[in-house]
């Protein structure tokens, strides 16, 4: 049995993807841990690996048609070093894993891994990221919240490869990002929270709120956001309990090795309170 493929370009990779059941691998920092065995033993995968991290078409960070276009195989350190990367995305990335892991781990891997605690995800949800999925039939574009369906479950079809991520250019007056973990580095999120806002003459012109690690996938509600948008600063404080109640219904955390459902619920709502009743004020 063939154990791996190493295509020279995207076209060859897509052909292999169509003809074979394979596991695409870029940075490998999650897959190699999931499939590790004892020292000296080769990690065992159910299907052949398809190495894609070196493919030129999946790399690069640039502006195209007024949107930021990030190649799926861009490593976290490449994103941190690039002046085009939004500072809010840099903030999230700099709190992820460690320096050597960030040299390997890719943004495409963080998306396709679809962990509820994936730290780039709340940022990508809040920035209205659109994913570009390639197959031999062409490309399709899909908003990130339609791509991720649950823990480890995505909309990626068997013949597709995530080619890139498109982010509209936004300017925000303020952003509030908090990751709650056991330490500053190498810790996975118990909770992450991102609030973005544009405020003109005391009125909220635009607001985006995302929660990570408190539900099967990132919690973001355009419906609640549009209700907040109608309010001014004072009204937000008055209405806060109602807003909290609405988000509370969407926040459905679990107990696991890192935290408890109770802690996650209480703290994520407190972060919402800090954002809406202090930061925005």
């Amino acid at each position, binding site marked *: 049995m063939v*154990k*791996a493929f190493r295509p020279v370009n995207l076209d060859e990779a897509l052909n292999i993807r169509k003809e074979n059941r394979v596991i695409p691998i870029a940075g*490998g920092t999650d897959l*190699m841990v999931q499939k*590790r065995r004892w020292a000296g033993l080769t990690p065992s995968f159910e299907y052949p*690996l398809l*190495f894609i991290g070196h493919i030129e078409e999946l790399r690069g960070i640039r502006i195209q048609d007024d949107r930021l276009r990030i190649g799926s195989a861009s490593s976290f350190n490449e994103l941190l070093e690039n002046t085009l990367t939004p500072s809010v995305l840099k903030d999230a990335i700099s709190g992820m894993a460690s*320096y050597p892991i960030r*040299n390997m781990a890719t943004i495409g891997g963080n998306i396709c891994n679809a962990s509820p605690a994936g730290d780039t995800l709340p940022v990508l949800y809040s920035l209205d990221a659109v994913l570009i999925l390639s197959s031999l039939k062409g490309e399709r574009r899909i908003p990130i919240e339609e791509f991720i369906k649950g823990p480890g479950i995505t909309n990626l079809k068997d013949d597709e490869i995530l080619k890139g991520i498109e982010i509209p250019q936004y300017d925000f007056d303020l952003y509030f990002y908090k990751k709650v973990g056991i330490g500053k580095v190498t810790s996975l999120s118990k909770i992450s929270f991102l609030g973005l806002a544009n405020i003109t003459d005391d009125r909220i012109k635009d607001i985006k709120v995302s929660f990570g690690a408190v539900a099967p996938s990132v919690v973001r509600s355009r419906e609640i956001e549009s209700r907040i948008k109608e309010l001014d600063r004072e009204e937000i404080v008055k209405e806060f309990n109602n807003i909290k109640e609405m988000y509370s219904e969407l926040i459905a955390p679990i107990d696991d090795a890192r935290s408890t459902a109770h802690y996650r619920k209480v703290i994520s709502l407190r972060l919402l309170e800090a954002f809406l009743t202090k930061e925005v004020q």
Partner: protein
Amino acid sequence: MRIEFTLNSESVSIDTEPQRRLLDILREDFRLISVKEGCGEGECGACIILLDGKAVNSCLIPAGRIKGSEVITLEGYRETERFRILMESFEDAGAVQCGFCTPGIIMTVESLLRENSNPTEEEIKKALSGNLCRCTGYSMIVDGVVRAVKKVKNDGKSI
């Protein structure tokens, strides 16, 4: 899978399973035992080497990924002038106790210095965020790097 790559400045070619860990290839096929296995899951940094000039955990690199790449381990790096300066500074600072984590730390520092020849203490700490040391408590290691950076500055050479 046949895999050709550059290892410590020499072209090498191996025939191995593509999922095999670079850590095992370096230790078992090439007997480069400066590369240590601590945790085997990317947390401890004892297996860090340079892959195309960047510090990475070799326990997380499958063989198929390194085709055409340049790999440097401490065995290759110790021939350089920069290593000599780092070694002296680590000795002066008392940055080495049992030594198990040291090869990974030296390779991480080299990766940092390639990007930034004059790092601050904060930048040094951030770069070393993926290297665990159970002996020193880290302050001597950071001090060792700070001393090396200063030594080069005083010599007027760039590190």
